[in-house]
């Protein structure tokens, strides 16, 4: 079904199985926070035993409410945060076992685009210098060679080269995000973490940047780990979607399956909560009660049971099974809404 949909780059869904670019192997991250008393400490579980593969030239989107751990998982995948346990492999090599020196070299292959371009660009540097910096530091480029490369990058992200001498403040939000992307692709990385990279932009600019990211992926063979809370953008750009809830990926699968036939009640609720730009559209709305519980007190059994409309006594006692289908659809639920068979 997913293969018939028109998507950028043609049939992205049919791809021979290849070695993953990134592999997370039972990765967890715990933080210690202040408890109620003066010396009491509580453990916050941001990411709880997550294993997943990012195939090369693929877009994996992480969705979920704030506090679901999606940003932490993104940072773990690049080892920007040290995992409490588990391993992270990049191109088959264990990132978690690398020396700082090896890590620095490997990091050139992985870059980040942040949500707030103004906060992530040095306000005192010209945008050309911002884009040139990684090329000077890591590639040792100087003079006209550097200038040519920076100009080419500006062109690649659709930025007018007449803007090169300006400071980030003088640019619009969309242009600043393009600078952030130019800097991120300067070292020809293989992996790009886009953490809410289009979330703060106006719709028309969001469409421009979404198109740019799709275009760069095709042209440069990039792999995206795309973190967003806006579901329409995720549906547009992702190949695979992982739905996070309280530190676990509770459902994961091809984008069309996730959106048209979600198997986890949480995924269904999340999709049904998304407003649709069509006043005649009627849907079955699953209105969730309350909000995501604290990650310091994760519910027993299934972590979603406290808000789940179909939870039973079993859900409070037994952790849900991990069901995997042949299409790579994974769901952790006692009572999946769609049949997921191996």
């Amino acid at each position, binding site marked *: 079904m997913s293969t018939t*949909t028109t998507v*950028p780059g043609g049939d992205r869904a049919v791809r021979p199985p290849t070695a993953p670019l990134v592999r997370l192997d039972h990765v967890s991250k715990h933080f210690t926070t202040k408890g109620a008393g003066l010396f009491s400490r509580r453990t916050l579980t941001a990411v709880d035993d997550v294993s997943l593969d990012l195939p090369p030239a693929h877009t994996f989107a992480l969705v979920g409410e704030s506090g679901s751990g999606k940003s932490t998982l993104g940072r773990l995948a690049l080892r920007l945060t040290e995992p409490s346990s588990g391993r992270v492999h990049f191109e088959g090599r264990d990132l978690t076992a690398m020396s700082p020196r090896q890590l620095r070299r490997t990091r050139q292959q992985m870059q980040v685009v942040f949500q707030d371009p103004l906060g992530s660009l040095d306000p005192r540097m010209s945008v050309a210098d911002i884009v040139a910096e990684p090329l000077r530091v890591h590639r040792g480029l100087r003079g006209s060679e550097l200038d040519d490369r920076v100009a080419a990058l500006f062109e690649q992200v659709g930025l007018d080269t007449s803007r090169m001498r300006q400071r980030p403040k003088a640019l619009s*939000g969309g242009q600043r995000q393009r600078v952030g992307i130019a800097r991120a692709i300067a070292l020809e990385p293989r992996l790009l973490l886009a953490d809410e990279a289009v979330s703060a932009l106006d719709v028309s600019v969001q469409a421009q940047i979404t198109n740019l990211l799709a275009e760069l992926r095709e042209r440069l063979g990039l792999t995206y780990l795309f973190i967003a809370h806006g579901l329409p953008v995720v549906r547009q750009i992702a190949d695979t979607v992982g739905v996070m809830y309280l530190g676990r990926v509770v459902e994961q699968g091809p984008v069309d399956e996730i959106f048209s036939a979600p198997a986890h009640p949480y995924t269904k609720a999340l999709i*049904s909560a998304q407003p649709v730009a*069509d006043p005649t559209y009627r849907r079955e709305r699953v209105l969730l009660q309350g909000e995501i519980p604290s990650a310091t007190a994760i519910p027993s059994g299934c972590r979603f049971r406290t808000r789940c409309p179909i939870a039973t006594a079993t859900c409070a006692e037994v952790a849900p099974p991990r069901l995997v289908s042949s299409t790579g659809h994974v769901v952790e639920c006692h009572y999946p809404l769609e049949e997921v068979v191996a």
Partner: protein
Amino acid sequence: MSIGSSPTTEPPALAAASHEEAPTRETLLALDGMTVTFRTPAGDRLPLVREASFQVRSGEIVCLVGESGSGKSVTARTVMGLTQRDPAMAVGGRAEVLGHDIVSDPSVTAGLRGRDLAMVFQEPMSSLDPVCTVGTQLTEALRRRHGKASRQAERSRLAELLAEVGIVDGRRVLDTYPHQLSGGMCQRVMIAQALACAPRLLIADEPTTALDVTIQAQILELVDRLRTEEQMAVLLVTHDMAVAAELADRVVVMYAGRVVEDAAPVALFDQQLHPYTSGLLRCIPPMVDERPARLVTIPGGVPSPAALPTGCSFHPRCPHSVDLCADRVPELADHGGRRSACWRAEELSR
């Protein structure tokens, strides 16, 4: 006298008006050619809002949509009497809030706020008092409308209100300070505070933009219910056309400080009479229909008020512009119950 042209408009006898009776559509907000101008230190006059005209009636949700720089937030703040506090801002034209002229006397809004008029801002952290507990601030809002009651009754009413905005452990939250809460939580406290006074007119500027969709759905549901059950009037400023599609009775589209289109959502989403509205709708990735290979975009960006194009402000980005568009500003004209400010509206709608 009210400037609302609606035949059902009542005289603004505010104190006597009861909204328990059959819903008579009373005009609670009426803008007629309202302008807001900013004077720069260099003495230039920048038009932020240009001749905005629209109305909000009781039991009605009007969504004011547009991108950054369209003037939608300035319009909302002016209606609340807030831009007028800035000496560099000048307000002209006519604007009536709950029957009071706020152009000649912006101070009247101070007496209305917290009773008949409430506002929710985008920045919750700067709108809540950092040295008061959430409970203290909410009690204040509650008393402004309902007077003093027993502490127990007040607390349980406030916990109820917090539950309605999706805060489950309301009683605990009442004893916290804003800095102990997340941004999303503060935003919901703000919304609860605005609703605690049971306003007749709510002005909400991107109230749910920073929230998760699940919480947004709860709050939009609540606003929808208050519109239907309490006849609350709402001016909802949003950049999200999907929110407007779900909630609005009317959608007012602004571009570069001007209202460019105004229509009921079903008509508007079915057919747009302004190319800017069409552009805005086409850039949204579809949630249901087949995905396009590339999203449609509007070339260029929103112009700065310091360098507005001549004629129709949208003409440099418009795929349908003709010579006339660059020469003369199109009026916001009536097209059978809806309005559009486009020279070619009739022609393009055929």
